[in-house]
């Protein structure tokens, strides 16, 4: 259905893709290596209506944002839609970006995730067959597996390790699948109060750990 249970691999083969696509983006650039100062500057220019700055921003950020959209949606087609919607929103909301509050990539990732969640929910609101429902609620620990595989000792990964298993799983599942509390109840087979408690305690612990 919407493929939330799909687990796009971390490494992707592009050999089957048309050459014409290669101009799209600088996809080998990791999030951490994209220059935050430059992105901030580009967003400021976008807020002034500078289309060239927007094109540059797109080249710099789209590969990472597409990875986020793909991780959430599980389908390239759906992820493409999400990416396009996200960039429209980024362009229209650039003036609302507050450099004092968050890093530019954080802001753009948040927009992308919100668009992905909208799409996931829209698909989910359509009636599901039993099979689709099973697929939807199939636990997907892939995010955590990715963290395990690509451990680079970031603060977040260290802090995630301090959480109890279900705290971690509920946060990661909600984050990438846009699951609501009630969906987590079904997916994690736990009462609502327990799920809420996992999230609250997990998040507070995460934050304390990150701030320490």
């Amino acid at each position: 259905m919407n493929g939330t249970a799909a687990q796009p691999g971390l490494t992707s083969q592009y050999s089957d893709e048309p050459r014409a696509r290669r101009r799209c983006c600088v996809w080998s650039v990791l999030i951490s290596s994209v220059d935050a100062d430059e992105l901030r500057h580009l967003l400021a220019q976008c807020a002034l209506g500078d289309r060239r700055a927007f094109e540059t921003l797109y080249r710099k950020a789209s590969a990472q944002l597409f990875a986020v959209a793909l991780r959430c949606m599980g389908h390239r087609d759906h992820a493409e839609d999400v990416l396009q919607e996200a960039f429209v929103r980024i362009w229209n909301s650039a003036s609302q970006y507050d450099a004092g509050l968050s890093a530019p990539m954080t802001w753009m990732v948040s927009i992308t995730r919100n668009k992905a969640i909208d799409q996931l929910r829209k698909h989910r609101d359509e009636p599901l067959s039993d099979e689709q429902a099973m697929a939807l609620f199939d636990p997907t620990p892939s995010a955590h597996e990715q963290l395990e595989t690509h451990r680079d000792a970031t603060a977040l990964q260290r802090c995630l390790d301090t959480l109890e298993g279900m705290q971690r799983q509920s946060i990661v599942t909600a984050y990438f699948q846009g699951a609501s509390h009630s969906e987590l109840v079904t997916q994690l087979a736990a009462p609502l109060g327990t799920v809420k408690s996992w999230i609250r305690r997990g998040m507070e612990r995460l934050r304390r750990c990150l701030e320490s």
Partner: protein
Amino acid sequence: MNYLQPELRRALAADYAIGLMPSTARRRFEGLLLDDPGLRAEVAKWQESLVGLTSSLAPKRCPSACG
């Protein structure tokens, strides 16, 4: 609901940042954010905490519709 309670604000901001809120609640919350710099700051902190979840994702070449 009393949106001035610090604990509630913090918890709602966390829910928003993770993506837990139902769509209607999310829209309402986004309405609150517009007029509440403190709440925006709270959300930003959570978002900054969580964004690391995506930093381990390998960048993906974007689709043909791009650019």
